[in-house]
């Protein structure tokens, strides 16, 4: 049981790290597409979408990290 738990926790930590990295990547790609001198609206729109999604993902990541850490903390107190 403890093995399964630590495996899932390790996986979650890795996924969180990858998520932050992907957020930075998406943010950079988004601004690159949005600021690129390509007169194609769809490309610029995709860049805008990447930026919006990345910001939302970062918001939920920060919130989730805090909330789940708080739940673990309170659960550990009892």
């Amino acid at each position: 049981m403890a093995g399964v738990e630590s495996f899932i926790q390790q996986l979650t930590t890795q996924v969180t790290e990858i998520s932050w990295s992907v957020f930075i990547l998406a943010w950079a790609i988004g601004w690159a597409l949005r600021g690129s001198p390509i007169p194609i609206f769809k490309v610029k729109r995709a860049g805008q979408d990447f930026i919006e999604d990345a910001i939302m993902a970062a918001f939920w990541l920060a919130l989730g990290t805090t909330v789940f850490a708080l739940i673990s903390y309170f659960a550990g107190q009892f």
Partner: protein
Amino acid sequence: MNVFQILSISQDLAGLTYFLGTLLMAIPVPVYGVKKWGPKLIVDGIYSSILVNLYETLILFVVQLGNYLGINWTYYISWLYQLLTGELQVYTLIRTLYATITSFPYGGINPIVGPLSLFLSLISGFMSITGTLIVISQLVYNYVGLILALGILMMSIPFRIGRSIGGSLIGFSIVFYVGLPLLPSFLSAFNVNVLQSTVGSADNLTVLATQVIPAYIEGTVLMPLVYLGILASLSVGIGSVISGSYSRLPIPVDFL
């Protein structure tokens, strides 16, 4: 297996689901089929986490609802065993009659042997049904917390893999824990008092065929079938509400 270990794993899985959702939301791939899983997984993670933390509240709610409806598990289990004992008495009586008749020379061709064999088969069937009811009841009574925790664990698996069965397990544990002990009351409400259908050694075959066997058919087959059907429908309904998708019972109740 410790229930709280299962809940701990469920909480970890809920966190994993949530962070997988954020990963998919952030991923710079303009494919809607992939991106749409982001918000879904975030919501699933939050929902599973809420269910994990509501576990004790759910158990308390089920017990309080049971108290409010006046359930008594001890009485119910004792009622089931009394029913089984009554069936066993009838079976023993018929078996004795059968053995007595067939012990005579050419007893096997006595016309009464046919109905007696039929009654033996029927009573065996009734006992099987009562035995199955006892097993299901003991399972629900002793493991309601475990079934509920397993339901929450299934709900916490990422990408909604166990969502349907998880909702079913939660609905099943709630409805059957509250509903099963009300079976004797349900039978009484329809004036079916199957425990009074016992027989003495002096009772003849006419009493068996016209009173005891019909009472058992009604009280151990037809009415429990209807009642379990009602409980099954409620379980599936609650399972669908909890899982938000198609739900089905974790155990077959069509053994009748």
